[in-house]
């Protein structure tokens, strides 16, 4: 990369379903905290990029009343209607042009306002799938899960093991919404069945939440004398074709996104080069698919990672040490929360779920049905 960009400050809200705060307060508090964390004043910001969507927020132009809360008064401002990780990528591009040197990236969703699975149904092809009226994101992912399980002989217990791992990890994370320390495979398989094989505990926990990350260009980082900047070493993003015309079992879009991110960061063997991965798994089986697409396991073999504890908190390559999206899923913010969690780990500020000696981590954000759009970021300490 010509111009290096670093994360200098972060904050996230305590995610929970129905947080007792207005949307404006939620965003304001987190933005304020992130600015304090970065040790800068609002006046020093150059540009602000937010991520939220109109359908989820229940307002056309969802960012319009939040500019003031997020600190964008008379600042360059833009909104990405995507996952927060994509917003971070866009803000990064803005800094890379040298037009601005500090950017604030904010992402939020108040999942309580309206069922996000209904919103997912609104994203379907209005001429075909919305007319047939069967699908939503859970249904589509359930079909994906079935296809994957049939193709590679993965059992439903393997999926439940992912939930057990992530929900257990979430118990250590004070910011997570669904914290189940001692949940067992049996309990996961007894939870309410939505679309076979996806049960309540295999579906991400919708939450109200907000995450803010402050990034700065290298010159500014030096000027500010930031103690532990976390550098964005690589970034990649890719969109796949619509549900009907893509291979659901392999996330080719994520593969391509990961490839460009690895290339940029100079990673040849992700399994050894990375110390930690935080991925957005809206459903238990997605974590397996994602691990394969990221090149951490061969196709169909990701279940071994979970079953052998490789991706567990104390494993070789912990995946979702924070509990991931199964722990808390504030839709648009989820990708940015992954970034925040990586930064916490690299800076050694993760508290009870700290993984020792994290130097390089991968954050992944996704949006759309069955992970249609993916963003991969490689973060590294100094």
């Amino acid at each position: 990369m010509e111009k290096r960009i670093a994360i200098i400050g972060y904050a996230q809200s305590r995610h929970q379903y129905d947080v007792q705060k207005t949307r404006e307060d939620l965003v304001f508090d987190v933005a304020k905290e992130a600015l304090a964390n970065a040790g800068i004043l609002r006046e020093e910001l150059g540009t602000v990029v937010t991520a939220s969507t109109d359908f989820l927020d229940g307002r056309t132009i969802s960012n319009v009343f939040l500019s003031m809360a997020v600190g964008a008064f008379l600042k360059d401002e833009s909104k990405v209607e995507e996952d927060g990780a994509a917003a971070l990528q866009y803000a990064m591009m803005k800094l890379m042009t040298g037009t601005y040197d500090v950017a604030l990236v904010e992402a939020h969703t108040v999942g309580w306002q309206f069922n996000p699975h209904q919103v997912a149904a609104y994203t379907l092809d209005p001429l075909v799938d919305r007319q047939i009226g069967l699908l939503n994101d859970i249904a589509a992912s359930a079909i994906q899960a079935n296809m994957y399980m049939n193709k590679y002989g993965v059992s439903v217990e393997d999926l439940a093991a992912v939930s057990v791992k992530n929900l257990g990890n979430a118990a250590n994370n004070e910011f997570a919404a669904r914290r189940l320390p001692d949940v067992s495979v049996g309990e996961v398989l007894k939870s309410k069945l939505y679309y076979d094989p996806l049960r309540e505990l295999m579906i991400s926990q919708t939450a109200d939440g907000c995450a803010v990350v402050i990034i700065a260009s290298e010159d500014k980082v030096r000027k500010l004398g930031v103690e532990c900047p976390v550098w964005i070493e690589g970034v990649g993003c890719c969109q796949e074709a619509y549900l009907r015309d893509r291979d659901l079992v392999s996330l080719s879009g994520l593969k391509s996104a990961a490839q460009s991110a690895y290339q940029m960061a100079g990673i040849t063997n992700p399994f050894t080069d990375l110390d930690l991965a935080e991925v957005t798994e809206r459903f238990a089986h997605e974590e397996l698919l994602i691990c394969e697409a990221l090149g951490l396991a061969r196709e169909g073999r990701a279940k071994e990672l979970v079953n052998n504890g490789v991706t567990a908190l104390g494993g070789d390559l912990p995946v979702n040490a924070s509990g991931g999206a199964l722990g808390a899923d504030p839709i648009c913010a989820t990708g940015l929360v992954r970034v925040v969690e990586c930064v916490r780990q690299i800076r050694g500020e993760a508290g009870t779920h700290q993984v020792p000696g994290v130097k390089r981590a991968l954050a992944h954000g996704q949006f759309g049905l069955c992970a249609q759009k993916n963003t991969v970021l490689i973060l590294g300490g100094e």
Partner: protein
Amino acid sequence: MFRNCAIIGCGQTKHTSRRRDVSVAELAQQAVQAALDDAGITMKDVGCVVSGNMQGFGGVAQPEQWLGDWIGCPGKPAIRIATGGTTGGSVGQGACYTVASGMYDVSIGVAWEKHSDSKEAGATTGLMHVGMGNLFHALTYGLSLRNLIATSAVGAAAGVAVYQAMFYMHRSGCKQEHLDMVAAKARRNAAKNQYAHLQWPNCRPEDIAKTETIAWPFRYGHVCPASDGASCIVVAEEKTAKRLCKQPAWFLGLASYSDEENQLQSENFGGVGVIDPSEQMGCRVSAKKAYAMAGITDPQKEIDLAEIYQPFPSQELIFSERLGLFDDGTAWRHMEKGETDINGRLPISVSGGVNATNAIGSSALQRILEAALQIQGKAGEHQVPKKVRKAVAHGWGGVTNYITCTVLGDSPR
């Protein structure tokens, strides 16, 4: 490093009130195909797709996930940007940033809107939805329905623009007949633009003055239509641009500063600290930043042409002043003298502008696109007679608190 980049291809569809011959996906595809053809490239050469519209108006959430197949998203990085009225401007700027940052060599920016897909005229429910949360909040506190209708429904077509116009007229001395003149100019110009919606050859201010008053000082003749349409630009870095295009339109400066909510309400029915919505501090700041980036010190002399986002005629006057093209409160005098006509000293909105064609999500991108066409000399019938070296494209959105300001030129920075 800001890597030099330029617009090398432009595409837009014919705008009308009902493009029922195509689906919204096909509409966007038409614009993309036209832009690729214009640039002389294929979809394989494109590195990144930036897209946007206002999803509430089309009824499809995150439409780029579905219609991405029609605009070339599959297998590519794709960013969806939506900022209300400025969506198009933000998409254009997004496409510029993706290239200027050095991440991709060629990007396309595509924006669209299809109002006829909505059952209500002008997508009123979608528009009302901006303040729906506030509205329901206020109703729980016994907001009188009479007040509600008087303050919102009376101006439904004109919205708060009518208040903004009143403020401007009061402080500048501009009269209703000047608004007629601006509207007539837009209709006249649109007649020369084959893609425009409301075309009225040789429209005179007297013709506009004959239309019914909706809320003084606005008449029906002043109001923008709700159009179906899409537009697309192809942005390329310096080498590619020079290789592919005889006269690229270079990005010189860009900014999108936001102001406090300009229209009485903030989140949860709070008030706002802006007394005069025609003050437009966001536009002042955006223009200053964009000009500074472009190395423009005296916009009044250096800018050759402006494309202003003016759904209502008063806004052309307000924003031309805020963009530094005229002294405060004098825009209407210059307009009266014909300086902003197609053959005038400083032509403004020669495409007819938003006043003649308003496909909301795409409107602000169209401003950038039209400015580029003028620089490239490809505007056809509405090409201005003089050489255009530097042009400014503007967009406003949100509750008139979002501004995008883009400066294009005929030579790189």
